[in-house]
């Protein structure tokens, strides 16, 4: 190998090493943020449990059917690294179809002296229903949502209709944790890939020194490399071992 190639290899190694260090530093920072957000989330869950009761914030409240509201997309890059992107699905709007409605009979005390409405031509069925809704306290039929049976509902609703603010804060914290998890997964992939490239470059460099007469074993034992890394290095350098 010529001197210029050796210089190029060393320059590449330096760049990869600096990139490796930068990735590790970034990974550490993201880790700290992730850990603190998780701890914040636990603290909020504990506060919610304190106000709602032990049994009201537990695995017993999990729905029997769940649909994931967030997913992760993966993309393999040319350099062998993998990128992760999260995507949050927009939940159903509050407007529902009639299929989702269940008639619920609400039985209560009837109003004394219930008015006797004269059936005239002017009274339409819709107007009657409106009057019933406004005045009568008798049995009513109100359509309500099938909240419990909608798998795509907000998980917050597993714990009740009105949940304390700490539980909402916990949900917000864990949503951020999920976003960060994707970034950390990508960073981990980049760290491992950069490490592999560095070791290959190092082995290549040492083999080139060996071919120039210096003993590689004095510098760094190649037994540290895995079998696949050794084979790749030998193929790249066409060195007979």
């Amino acid at each position, binding site marked *: 190998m010529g001197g210029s190639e050796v210089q190029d290899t060393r320059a590449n190694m330096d760049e990869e090493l600096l990139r490796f260090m930068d990735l590790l530093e970034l990974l550490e920072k993201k880790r700290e943020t992730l850990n603190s957000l998780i701890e914040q989330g636990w603290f909020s869950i504990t506060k919610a449990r304190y106000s709602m009761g032990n049994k009201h914030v537990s695995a017993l409240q*999990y729905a029997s059917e*769940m649909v994931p509201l967030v*997913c992760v997309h993966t993309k393999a890059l040319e350099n062998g690294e993998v990128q992760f992107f999260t995507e949050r699905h927009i939940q159903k709007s509050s407007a529902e179809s009639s299929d989702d409605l269940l008639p619920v009979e609400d039985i209560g005390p009837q109003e004394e002296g219930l008015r006797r409405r004269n059936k005239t031509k002017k009274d339409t069925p819709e107007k009657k229903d409106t009057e019933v809704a406004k005045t009568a306290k008798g049995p009513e039929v109100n359509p309500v949502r099938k909240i419990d049976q909608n798998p795509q509902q907000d*998980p917050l609703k597993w714990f009740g209709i009105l949940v304390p603010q700490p539980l909402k804060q916990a949900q917000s914290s864990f949503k951020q944790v999920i976003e960060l998890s994707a970034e950390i997964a990508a960073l*981990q992939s980049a760290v491992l890939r950069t490490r592999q490239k560095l070791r290959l470059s190092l082995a290549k460099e040492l083999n080139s020194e060996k071919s120039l007469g210096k003993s590689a074993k004095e510098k760094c034992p190649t037994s540290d490399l895995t079998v696949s890394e050794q084979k790749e290095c030998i193929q790249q350098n066409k060195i007979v071992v």
Partner: protein
Amino acid sequence: MAGRGKLIAVIGDEDTCTGFLLGGIGELNKNRKPNFLVVEKDTSVTEIEETFKSFLARNDIGIVLINQFIAEMIRHAIDGHVQSIPAVLEIPSKEHPYDASKDSILRRAKGMFSAEDFR
């Protein structure tokens, strides 16, 4: 890679699973197995390991989140996983804070160089 997104799985204690399910990652229906496992005091190591391996075998899971103290129980299985997907992230638990020296990924990155390399 376009198309339907992958799931995020979680193996953790009750509060960890509750938190992430609140975040909206949970999938549970009659046909498919859940993408989460709540580890309690009486959960066996075998069950944890089998669940972890089943998550790795599924092609619709992109990230596996696992409490570090649970990861320690199945360290050999985690160290044996070298593929990029699904990515395995170790997270702290309430009783066991995160320890970078135990993280599989960082341990692999740790033994990069020896002192001889810089001579």
